[in-house]
């Protein structure tokens, strides 16, 4: 076998194992549901898949069978000259085609019923008790998140990462303040378009703790590919602890380097866009950074949240995420490390 053949084989094998592996991976997959919404949809998916797959095979068998009958019709009929098929053949074919058409109608009707009833099943979640409301605003190219509560002292803002308790229905109220985005966390539910001037609501629930990756699913401009959101499902106890911590303002920096970092932050253009509760920085244009240090990623999870990535991001946002709206602020090399330390200290 030539090296090309080997390479092609390897590629096919890799893709095949990848395809098999997807059944086993959790990440961002439609067929790995972790909650009732995505579970119902996955169930419907497999029903459709097997039924329609069988129908496809049947049709293919019928089509390919015609190839095994070269040079004769159903009965041995010379077609030259008359090009007419006998009446008997024609009526047999009529019966078969009519039967197949009726079967098609019936099967489609079954599929419609299955689909509509699954849709009704998906609409049950809002009627359960003890729901949590999170308002998510999609904006170019990150997610602005506000946890809602009728008690306004329990309302706080964060960005790009949602924590939810397992077993509790969560209402995602979707907004957009620029173009149309779409909130999609496949492990949890289908997608909901966030359209400016409308509120689109989606109900999700996670039954297993885990980190579920989602992505914007409506083309929204240059960095549509890097608008990623993590939904982290935790046990109710852990969620409560996280929630209470998020309500706290940022702590004051303790050591001189971190204090210097805070100074650098306050004296630069950072404050025009970012908010750190507990300090004077209250910009609303960019993500809230109050508890930035405890988040998984930077720049809507384009890169993982490590000091090195953070330094690269601040020094040159356009190389990490070309076209994004963060200003390229020239920070002195002497000031960069303290700034990174400060931001990472905002746990």
């Amino acid at each position: 076998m030539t090296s090309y053949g080997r390479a092609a084989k390897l590629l096919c094998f890799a893709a095949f194992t990848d395809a098999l592996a997807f059944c086993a991976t959790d990440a961002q997959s439609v067929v790995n549901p972790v909650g009732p919404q995505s579970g119902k949809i996955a169930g419907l998916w497999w029903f459709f898949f097997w039924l329609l797959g069988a129908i496809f095979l049947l049709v293919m068998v019928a089509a390919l069978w015609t190839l095994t009958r070269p040079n004769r019709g159903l009965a041995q009929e010379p077609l030259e000259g008359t090009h007419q098929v006998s009446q008997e053949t024609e009526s047999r074919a009529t019966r078969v085609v009519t039967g197949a058409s009726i079967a098609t109608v019936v099967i489609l009707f079954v599929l419609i019923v299955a689909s509509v009833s699954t849709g009704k099943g998906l609409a049950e979640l809002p009627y359960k008790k003890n729901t949590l409301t999170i308002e998510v605003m999609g904006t170019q190219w990150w997610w602005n998140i506000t946890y809602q509560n009728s008690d306004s002292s329990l309302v706080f803002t964060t960005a790009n990462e949602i924590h939810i308790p397992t077993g509790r229905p969560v209402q995602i109220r979707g907004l957009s303040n620029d173009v149309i985005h779409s909130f999609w966390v496949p492990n949890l539910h289908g997608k909901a378009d966030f359209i400016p001037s409308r509120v689109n609501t989606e109900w999700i629930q996670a039954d297993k703790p885990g980190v579920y990756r989602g992505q914007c699913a409506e083309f929204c401009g240059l960095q549509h590919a890097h608008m990623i959101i993590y939904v982290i499902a935790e046990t109710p106890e852990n969620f409560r602890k996280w929630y209470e911590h998020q309500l706290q303002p940022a702590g004051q920096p303790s050591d001189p380097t971190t204090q210097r970092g805070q100074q650098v932050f306050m004296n630069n253009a950072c404050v025009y866009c970012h908010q750190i509760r507990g300090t004077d920085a209250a910009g609303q244009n960019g993500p809230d950074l109050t508890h930035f240090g405890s988040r998984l990623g930077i720049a809507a999870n384009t890169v993982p949240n490590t000091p090195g990535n953070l330094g690269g991001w601040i020094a040159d946002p356009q190389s990490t995420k070309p076209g994004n709206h963060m200003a390229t602020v020239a920070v002195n090399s002497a000031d960069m490390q303290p700034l990174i330390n400060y931001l990472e200290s905002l746990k």
Partner: protein
Amino acid sequence: MIQTQDVLPNVPNQEEDISNLERVWRRGRGLFGWLSVTTHQAIGMRYIVTAFVMLLVGGIEALLMRIQLAKPNNTFLNPDLYNQIFTTHGTTMMFLFAVPMMEGMAIYLVPLMCGTRNVAFPRLNAFGYWMFLGGVLFLYWGVFTGAAPDMGWFAYPPLSGPQFTPGKRTDVWAQMITFTEFSALCVATEIVVTILKMRTPGMTLNRIPLYVWSLLIQSFMVIFAMPAIVVASSYLLSDRTIGTHFVNPAEGGDPLLYQHIFWFFGHPEVYIIFIPALGFVSAIVSANARREVFGYPAMVLSQIANGFIAFGLWVHHMFATGLPQIGEAFFTASSMMIAITSGVQIFCWIATLWTGRPRMTTSLYFVYGFIAIFVLGGMTGVMLASVPLDLQVHDTYFVIAHFHYVLIGGAVFPLFGAFYHWFPKMTGRLMSERLGRWNFWVLFIGFNLTFFPMHILGLKGMPRRVYTYPPEVGWGSISQLATLGAFIIAIGGIMFLANVFMSRKTGSVAGNNPWEADSLEWAASSPPAPYNFEYLPVATTRTPMWVPREERAFVTGLRTDRREVLVTTLMDAEPHHRYVLPGSSIWPFITAITVTIGFIGSVFNPWYIISGSILTFFGLLGWFWPRRSTEIRDEAGVRA
């Protein structure tokens, strides 16, 4: 020109008729003659060639995209370029390849199949082509000057609005649409009138070839659907150029309004592309199975139902926008029901092949490929019709896989089959069957290798229109496989071009009817004379070319010293009156130039609408200037 029609025993002056026809229908000389041609074969061929070039260009754009996506975090294309390329790929394929190609084949074949000499409005035909060419040139001028559209081929606002897509990119896109929709409307109008009023005597509605039925239905669909896209793109264009608020939510406009109007066009659009392809399949199957297609009434009614139902599906593109559940359920039902109409047709073709005597020519290979690929695409379409499933896989690679299966499988494979089937008619030479079979298998394998894995990518969470992805999501090796498949498709395309160029020089000479097919275009010579038939053949059955030679009838007595055709009644195609068609004319070209000036200029300055209109007035003045017997020429070719 070789006269291959039989010498008719009782018709006097046949030689004189033939030489008159040659003279009257001859194209003028030089560039001026080329610009003023109004015969349908020439214009149809122009559409076909231009649209095919657009297919190649769109294919190159696809290859660029696939190279960028072959591995994670690739830097082959920056996001701005990638956005421009995927938008231009979609726009080129949908507006500049698919619809014009189907129209071009229709313009070429419909008058031949109907047994007449030209389309009903020859100058409008020429004008439509120049408008199409104007759209092509305008869009690609934009592409080469950095103004390629970059907001997706459906250009949803607010992303495509003035604030979020600065410059002229979206304006170029929106005005290109106006060009191509004008062109489509021109073609649709003349095809409808040709089919309804210019069929040869005896070709009752019950005897119209299935391809011609498909074009009739498609043309009506064009007439109803195209105005919607003109409205949608005009809303966008006026929002961007003169500051209106049709789709600006802050001032009371609605982005969803655009989506509704766009998809009211957009869904029928794909059936506009697909239904003529079904016509191709019918023609190829009947010729190669040696019997007429089974279930003619069922086929016709299915196609008509297809055309109607297609207008009731559009919301399935908007299931994720938060519309009420009961509304969405209605569209689930209608989207699934349209599978019945396509299914019935597939069953009829399979029954035809089953009860006929199939002869495996390359075009029949492509028909089998069509059945395999299109039915799979139809299955995923039924999945997408279901709202819960669509909420998961909408705007992902699953949808990309679906529509490439139905469009390439459902339209491009039949189109290639059509090329192999009618190439002998258009050029007089047969294509190589051996290379054709290789061509088919390379395209079939390459296509499935590229697009089948995309179903898996979509289920694994990969959204559409992303210019890159990180390594940890596990999309890398499947993407690489898809890129490999894309290059195999490219090889298939090159093989096809090689076959075309080779066969034009060295293919075996085809007679009038190398496939012994049944419809009237095979009565004309290969390639047809500009006047198609010396004497129009009469149709007494659905398969006129299978009537024994002795029993065939012809229309005699039409004047041959002018471009005269026979207009017949709608239902039964009885001769009604004679009509003289206009000859060559430069005015369609001139009018197209003036309209182009108005359209292109208005993108930059609204005042060009006024000046363009004034210039167009003069163009139309020349076009409609009353002619006194200008079509009658004496023996020396001088106008009487």
